């Protein structure tokens, strides 16, 4: 089963890198782009029998290591074989 974890700075926290990227896009003429938020993306192969089990595990590793809950929030997506159907959940 595959889990995807998206980690970003919490919305309340200024993202200096995202701001710099926003400014660069404006310099390139993309004036309609606002508020770029940079984050991290993880793909995990998980040995689990149910989507629920894989989601619980992905949540746990995101909480413990992949995200720092003080400054970051994360979102977990799990599916088997990369199909669109699956489970999604977020935590901030």
């Amino acid at each position: 089963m595959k889990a995807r974890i998206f980690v970003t700075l919490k919305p309340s926290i200024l993202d200096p890198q995202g701001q710099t990227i926003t400014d660069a896009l404006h310099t390139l003429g993309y004036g309609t782009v606002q508020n770029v938020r940079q984050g991290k993306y993880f793909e995990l192969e998980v040995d689990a029998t149910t989507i629920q089990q894989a989601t619980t595990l992905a949540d746990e590793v995101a909480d413990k290591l992949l995200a720092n809950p003080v400054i970051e929030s994360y979102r977990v997506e799990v599916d088997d074989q990369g199909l669109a159907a699956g489970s999604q959940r977020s935590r901030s």
Partner: protein
Amino acid sequence: MKFAVVVFPGSNCDHDAYYAIKHVIGQEAAFVWHKATDLGDADVVVLPGGFSYGDYLRSGAIARFSPIMARVAEFAAAGGPVIGICNGFQVLLEAGLLPGGMRRNGRVKFICEHVCLRVEQVDTPFTRHAMVGQVLRVPIAHGDGNYYADPDTIRALEANRQIVFRYTAPDGARDDTWNVNGSTAAIAGICNDARNVVGLMPHPERACEAAVGSIDGRVILESVVAELADRGVAEVN
């Protein structure tokens, strides 16, 4: 007095700390590899600067799971003095031994320069020989030193007097232009509730001899020597 200097893969200020302890302050220093499962008979623990695990994932995020960190947590819980410098501070934050977290510097640049550091609290083992309001000139060298804690945590840090160092102007005035990395409340260093664990981004160990431009960092090491002497630990010499 024995200082344990913890060495993570990627630590690069471990030798600076060792040199300052051994050759400037004249106390015993020993490197302790991060995979060690005991701190020996250390009286004080130093988590040095550097780029543990290449700063992969987040600065300090992986080092905090090193086997030695369980012993450091026990040592801290028993009241032992622990100081985290730069990456060592980041490790203490990731380990939850100090509150808050680090963001990329506000100007998105690695900053390597001397800063002015105002001492806010002197009732920690690492500042007891300093004076409140004293301004220390000490170097920084970091990309992720932009301290963050949520407003409730900042209020608690203020109320409990846990903000130990702030970035200020040379005369000690609060001024955002001197808060070089954009830290919340200009915080450069904090201590835990029990005051025995201190973390700071600047490098006092690199400001211990006139030859390197400043001796202002010495007071941090001299303070803990005095603290240990009060606790009955014998000094070398």
